């Protein structure tokens, strides 16, 4: 006789993101070869690897920017392999970019507002927001959440680099994200800003899982519970942060390999 807890353990046990045999070729070059990764809902994982290991290509395949050469991608059980990017985003997938991709002529608030529109039915609205617009309020809340309320009405082109990185994160949090791909969120941040970033990542609601690409091991290993190590477009090792950190092969390849 099963206990209630045992029987209910199947609820929500499906994978958030399930990649099977994902391969991406650029001509003769295999950027990704037979990548199989499964991430639970709410799981936080780091993808490590040297330059050219295929980390950003992996993100581009998951978001649909690059079609796969072969393999399948499931998002919360749904096969999204052939979905266009916007359909994946509307299902709760989000991403940030290694190099900030923002709208420099718009204010901070309008950038976030646009992101909120994108994942709502109001995206085609020809009406300007009224006094009590829900999306405007959502944008306000997000701006506060990433500590940008003070520069809310400034244009993005006037922001410091660190603030732009924070805004990138705010855009990824618009709507109801279920899974987020962070591409080197700490790139170019000062130590203080890194602490703020870690605080934001660790205090995200528990149901939101993410994959973070990060070169800075201090940041990466503090905000994740599992690590995937990539090398030459393949999954090289998977495991807990401390296992990976102490793995001799990984140290050989990455941590001790020339650059720290």
């Amino acid at each position: 006789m099963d206990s209630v807890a045992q029987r209910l353990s199947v609820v929500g046990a499906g994978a958030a993101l399930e990649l099977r045999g994902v391969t991406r070729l650029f001509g003769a070059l295999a950027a990704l070869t037979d990548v199989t990764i499964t991430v639970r809902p709410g799981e936080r994982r780091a993808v490590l690897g040297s330059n050219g290991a295929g980390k950003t290509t992996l993100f581009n395949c998951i978001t649909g920017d690059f079609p796969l050469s072969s393999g399948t991608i499931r998002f919360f059980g749904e096969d999204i392999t052939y979905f266009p990017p916007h359909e994946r985003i509307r299902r709760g997938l989000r991403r940030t970019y290694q190099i900030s991709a923002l709208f420099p002529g718009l204010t901070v608030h309008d950038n976030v507002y646009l992101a909120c529109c994108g994942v709502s039915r109001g995206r085609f609205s020809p009406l300007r927001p009224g006094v009590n617009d829900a999306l405007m309020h959502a944008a306000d809340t997000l701006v506060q959440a990433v500590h940008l309320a003070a520069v809310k009405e400034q244009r993005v082109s006037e922001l410091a680099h660190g603030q732009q990185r924070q805004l990138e994160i705010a855009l990824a949090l618009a709507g109801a994200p279920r899974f987020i791909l962070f591409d080197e969120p700490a790139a170019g941040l000062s130590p203080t800003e890194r602490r703020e970033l870690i605080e934001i990542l660790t205090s995200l609601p528990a149901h939101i899982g993410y994959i973070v690409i990060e070169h800075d091991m201090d940041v990466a290993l503090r905000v994740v519970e599992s690590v995937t190590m990539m090398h030459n477009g393949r999954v090289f090792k998977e495991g807990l942060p401390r296992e990976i950190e102490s793995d001799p092969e990984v140290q050989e390849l990455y941590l001790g390999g020339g650059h720290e």
Partner: protein
Amino acid sequence: MSLLQSTQLRVEPAATGARHAFIRAWPELQNPAAWLVALILVIMPLIANGFFLIEIFATTLILGIIALSLMFLAGYGGMVSLMQLSIAGFAGYMVAVFGVSGNANISLGWPWWLATPMALALATLFGTLGGALAVRTEGIYTIMITLAIGAAFYYFTNQNWAIFNGHTGINTVATPHFWGVDWRADIAFYYVTLGVAAICYFAVQYVSRAPFGLALQGVRDNSRRMAALGFNPNAHRIAAYAFAAFIAALGGVLQVWNYRQISPGSVSVGACIDILIMAVVGGITRPIGPFIGALIFVLLRTFALDVLIKFGLDGNRFRLLIGLGFLAVVFWSSDGMVGLWERWRPRNAPSPARSNGGRHG
């Protein structure tokens, strides 16, 4: 072109509560110059005679509406469409075909209030389908494909006799008469065009800051990023073509009422390019630009002849003047007359920095 350059998107001064929301919804009502221009346009029939009212101002407003539809696509969407005049011409033809005209064998004789919505709907459909083709391409290829659609339509009207009556076109098109008013009489028609132009101008201005318009500008600047925010860039582009097609169609209906006839000459490739010239000379970052461009174009077209003859030159060379003017404006300012005006103004002018943002004639 970045969002930075198109100054539809400005930081508004802080205000509170409903007032803030009102300003956010209608920042353009804050501009005294706009009110002045609007006032002049409204009392124009007291100042100008019938010739000026129709040949200069109504014609400018009509061409301005068509150029406005191009400005919307090019300025906010980054899509230079050369088929906007074809859409307008198609709407004009449909008014003539469904309504009443001198060619009874072709015209179906519907009353204007049935024929006009039909023409608007069909022309919008035409523009949307053309747009759906054009969004598969970018940059110069968009220009080419829309030019091809425009050229194809021109040759089709020339050769099709069953609907378009070949190169003679359709003549003596009936214009609306109701409430005891002949709406094609000079003053009444001027107000009709002024009203429609104002509605189109404000619609474009308004939409540019609504989610749809903001997203369109986002798609123009970084469509991949917009897809990563959940927008479908191509759907947005096609919707923009539909919106612009409706505006162009309104201009086309007014144009056929203005001339009371339509023929392939009205939709020639040269005429398509004239619309581009108006939009570029006026400036494609503001809705007011196309109207300024149209006014310059109409003034040159009307008076260059006399001026040229006065200097002992062939009057038919007025296009030379337009061409030189076009070169000069593009050379001095990539943003047309609006750009020149912006540069000439003191730099520390208070925001929102806009030119004479009213309905201009």
